C-alpha cells in the first residue's frame, strides 16, 4: 500500500506544463491527498479557469498515481480556495530564478490598477524596483508583462489573484 507521503513526493515531480521550473506542489494547487486501501483521491484547485494547462495537470496526476499501482481519483474543485499566495516559498524562488517575477502578496480587496502602475514590482533579473507595466495581460492568463528600466529587460510578472 502506498503512503500519503509517497503520493505527495510523486506529485512534487510533476512540472507545471506552462512553467516547467515549478511543480504542481510548488504551485499550491493540490489541496488534499487521501489514501484509502486501493484508491488515492486528490483534490485539485485550478489556477485560472481558462488555462489550457489544467487538463494536462489533471491527466499527469492521474497517470503518476496510477504508476504507484493504485487507482487515481482526481477531483477538480472550482471554488475560491486557490490564490497565488498558495505558491510555496520554494516555488516563488524557482520562478524568480527563471525570469518570472513571483506574484506580490494579495492584499485585502485584491489588486488595484494604481499598484500595477506603481514601481512596487521587482525585476527578477537585476532586482531593481524601477519597473513599468507594459501590459496587464501576457502570453498566458497568469502573467502580466513589465519592463525593467534599470537593466532594460522586459519580464513576465505572475499576476496576484
Amino acid at each position, binding site marked *: 500500500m502506498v503512503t500519503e507521503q509517497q503520493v505527495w513526493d510523486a506529485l512534487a515531480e510533476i512540472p507545471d506544463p506552462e512553467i516547467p521550473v515549478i511543480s504542481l506542489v510548488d504551485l499550491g494547487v493540490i489541496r488534499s491527498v487521501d489514501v484509502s486501501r486501493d484508491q488515492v483521491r486528490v483534490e485539485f484547485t485550478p489556477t*485560472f*479557469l*481558462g488555462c489550457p494547462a489544467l487538463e494536462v495537470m489533471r491527466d499527469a496526476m492521474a497517470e503518476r498515481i496510477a504508476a504507484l499501482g493504485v487507482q487515481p481519483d482526481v477531483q477538480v474543485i472550482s*471554488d*475560491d480556495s486557490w490564490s497565488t499566495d498558495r505558491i510555496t516559498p520554494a516555488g516563488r524562488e524557482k520562478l524568480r530564478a527563471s525570469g518570472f517575477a513571483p506574484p506580490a502578496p494579495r492584499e485585502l480587496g*485584491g*489588486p488595484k490598477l494604481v499598484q500595477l502602475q506603481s514601481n512596487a514590482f521587482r525585476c527578477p533579473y537585476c532586482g531593481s524596483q524601477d519597473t513599468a507595466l*507594459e501590459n496587464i495581460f501576457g502570453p498566458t*492568463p497568469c502573467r502580466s508583462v513589465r519592463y525593467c528600466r534599470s537593466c532594460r529587460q522586459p519580464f513576465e510578472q505572475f499576476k496576484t489573484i
Partner: protein
Amino acid sequence: MNAQALLEIADDELILGWRNSEWTGIAPLLEEDVAFSSIAQNEIGHARAWYELAARELGTTADELAFDRQPDEYRCSTLVQLRLVPDWARTIARHCVYERSDQARIEALKQSEDAEVAGLAAKIDREEAYHRMHAEMWSERLKDEPRFSAALEELEPLFDVRDEHVPEFAALWEEMTMVRRSVAGATW
C-alpha cells in the same frame, strides 16, 4: 441556482469571449492583441465553469449546452452579441459597460446561498479584477473622446436586453458550432 439563470451568465461569457477573440491578430496595438486574446480565453473558461454547473442540473454536458443549442435558445445579452470589429471606440465602450454590469452580478452571486455558485463567483472575481483594471485604464484614456462617449451612451442600456438576437449573431453561431454540427460527438 436555477439552470436558466446559470445559462444567462455562461452565454454572456461565451459569446463575449468569441467577440473579443475577433481582435486576435488585428487589434490596433500589439499589446491589445495580447490583452483581448487573453480576456477572451478567460471569459470562455468562465463560461465553461458556469455551463458545467448548469449541465449537472439539466443532465447534459457543458459542450452540449455551449454548442448544440439552436441560435434562439441562447440567452445572452444583446450587448455581447454585437460584432464591433473594426470599431475600437465601441469595443472599449462595450468592455467598460460589460465589466461594470458583470461586477454587480458577480458581487450578488458571491452572496448566493448555493456554496458552489458563491465559490465559483469568488474565484472568477479574482480574474475579472484584471479585466476591470484594463477597462479602467482605457476608460481613463478615452474619456474625452466624443466617439467613446457616444458609444457608451449607445451600449449602456443593452446589458439587460435578452429577449432578442441581433442579425449578426447568426453568423457567430454558424462559425462557433461548425465543428460540432459537422462531426457529431466530436472531441478534441
